[in-house]
């Protein structure tokens, strides 16, 4: 299963890379979000899958799955949510101020170039 999940996260990373390279801000943000999904799956896979029971004590389990990646991912989910929210609002504000969501048109001022 580990190999399959790894390949799956690789596919997600590929898709997100493709999205990040596009012009529309929304596509880029979507790409970044998909990227974090891929990474989360990978992190969890790194600890080994189904090696024990749910990491809850007191239920008579002998061994547990690796709890450390889970804690990391929990943090990461929250942070990537914050990033997505900020990026979306940034896109909103950019569209409000400059009237475009195309990053090719966001190249600074003409006299800078």
């Amino acid at each position: 299963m580990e190999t399959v999940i790894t390949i799956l996260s690789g596919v997600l990373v590929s898709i997100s890379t493709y999205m990040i390279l596009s012009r529309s801000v929304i596509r880029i943000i979507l790409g970044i979000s998909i990227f974090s999904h891929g990474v989360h799956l990978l992190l969890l896979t790194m600890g080994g899958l189904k090696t024990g029971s749910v990491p809850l004590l007191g239920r008579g389990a002998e061994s547990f799955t690796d709890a450390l990646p889970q804690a990391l991912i929990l943090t990461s989910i929250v942070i990537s949510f914050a990033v997505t929210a900020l990026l979306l609002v940034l896109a909103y504000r950019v569209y409000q101020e400059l009237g475009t969501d195309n990053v090719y048109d966001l190249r600074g001022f003409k006299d800078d170039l």
Partner: protein
Amino acid sequence: MIVNLAILIPFIIAAFIPFVHKKITRIHIGWIVLFVPLLLFILLASFIPSISDGQTFAYTIPWIPSAGINFTTYLDGLSLIFGLLITGVGALVVVYSIYYLSSKESLTHFYIYLLLFMGAMLGVVLSDNIMILYVFWELTSISSFLLIAFWYHRKRSREGAQKSLLITVAGGFAMLVGFIMMTVMTNTFSVREMIGAAGEVSDHTLFLPALLLILLGAFTKSVQFPFHIWLPDAMEAPTPISAYLHSATMVKAGIYLVARFTPVFGGDTTWFWLVTGIGLLTLFWGAFNAIRQTDLKALLAYSTISQLGMIMSMFGMGSAALHNGYSPDSVVYTQATFAALFHLVNHSTFKGALFMVVGIIDHEVGTRDIRKLSGLITLMPISFTIMAIGSFSMAGLPPFNGFLSKEMFFTAALDTGALSIFSLDTLGATLPVIAWTASVLTFVYCMILVFKTFFGPYREEKLERPAHEPPVGMIVPPAILSFFVIAIFFFPNILGNHLLRPAINGIFPTFAAAGESLGRSISQWHGFNTELYMTIAIVILGTILFLTLRYWAGIYHLFPEKLSFNALYDFSLEQLETRSNSVTKSYMTGFLRDYFVYIFLLFIGLTGGAMIFTGAFDFDISGNAPIATYEWVLVIIMFSAGIAIPFAKSRLTAVLLYGVIGYLVAIFFVLMRAPDLALTQIVIETVTTVLFLVAYYFLPEWGKENTPKRTKVTNLIISLSVGAIFIVVALAVQNGRLFESISSFYENAYELAGGRNIVNTILGDFRALDTMLEVVVLLIAGLGVYAFIKLKYGKGNQNLEDK
């Protein structure tokens, strides 16, 4: 110990200057600053008796002992001479500056920079550890930069400061490399130990590069040809600074370095010819160019260049004595070094005084243009007297100290020219000839300084203010210096025996060890000898040239301005700017995609390259957990949803597909025995999808990407490679477990943290601080979101960025 403290005192006081300045407004801050150099001067002067008895003082404060870098000071005759000059001239300059600068100037800056310089310069001459020496060396460059740009609203000040910084710091870097080479050769950071190991290094392959690089540092600092171009531009600094940094002390740091390293490199042919040759060339070129200057300060700048060249060349000549090691015959050639040390002191006295008088003229009359000045003698008799003393001393006339050192210079040039080493038997005659020619030119510009300024008809209409004597406080410092100019002439041996002899013993340690008494008794009269005839010829020819100046001044126009070193400097600076600008522009395109492409390509190149290069790829699926059929189904659904997103026609479809992926991830979390993650993922996924939908309300429908096909293909290739490398690395890492997981530690969660949910105890107890910072990140993001939505430009500055 006390010497280490002496270096640090100026820095410490400088830190307090702003506070003192705020508290004490009634008296000029300069009077408080004055105590520093005065105190240090008295402190250093108290060492004179023991130094002249041949003692030296060293003290080490360990700093980074493991790297061999210690704050070691070493006080001997040579550093004492410099130390006394720095503090003595420093004290006079501070007094002078009190009257020179009006209290409206930003005096705190001025005195902080000045103290910074004073401490740094003391550090240069008193440090024994070359790394410490280097740090102080660059600090002098920086404080010089700050002081030249003191009037930073002037363009010329800024340019002059930039020029001096670029040239001296570049030289400093070269010197640092040279120092490191020295350390490699001698295995020590201590200058004294390097001198001790001098005999062993001369065959080393790094000997010549180290020699050249250290000389580069010394030459840039001591304005030797062709690096002299920064000094005239440095004259934009306030005159007290020109008098202090750019004639008496800082520009002599290079000379100090040459003197310090003479025992290591002296006797080498390259060293002899470079130091002597460049010195003589600088002597001539400076004197030659000084004559054509119309600005008094520029004239003094070129004369400083010329005089420094003279001192430099004498150190070069003196180094010849070391060529064959110690022998009673070669002692005579050390006289050149003795003369150099003597002239070093003399130059500081008369040049300091001259700068101060020029400052007085500038301050009182409002101009320092020779073409406008004339006839000031009746109105400024005291200034005239000081100027005349300084100039005649520089010209080498009796009864001033410059006469003595110039005679000794001629002696040295004649003696060295008659040597038979270093192919001097063919070239030797040029030495006294160049020395003599340059001295004639020196005489001419000294006369210009005195006669053009003070004689002739007084024309007040050309001046900004009518001429009159300055306040006493501005007269006293140059008067004290010119007193020394005369006093040293009559009692040169007080200086010679107490300071110069100990210094020269430090430069020729092998000679001193042989019991030789180096240095000599300086006398005013040697009988009718070649040197005296040379001086008489200088006076006669110089006077003729001065009187006929306007007939031959045309030769200065023979040199086209375009071929000067200044033009070369300007050209390189300009090219540097345009070239680097175009290089930067070629890759900083402003397209977000390009920057992402750089990042991804680097990832592909480095990580992929490393994988292939090291053969780290390792693939093994035997330890995998089994996959149930429904898991396969989930995988396939997720896979298809992912692939479909880039092809989605409408953004709504895309975000729905994105939601599918998110919830599937949550299901996978369940399958992977991570209930907390699944819960969080479901909540967050829901909120995120809502957020996307809200954003869609405000944003336009995503249009068709009208990207060219080639770009699309490139993007595809890049993203496929990134994914492939990602997978390969991940698989390799999974199979390469180097050590056991530390997770078992957390399985004692109940005993350690009192919680039964291991993941929760990690977040809430073991790594609680991380979680708190994570909340801080959320808070910052929240603030950002709020600011983006709520804050708008004020009406007034809406177009601020456009202008």
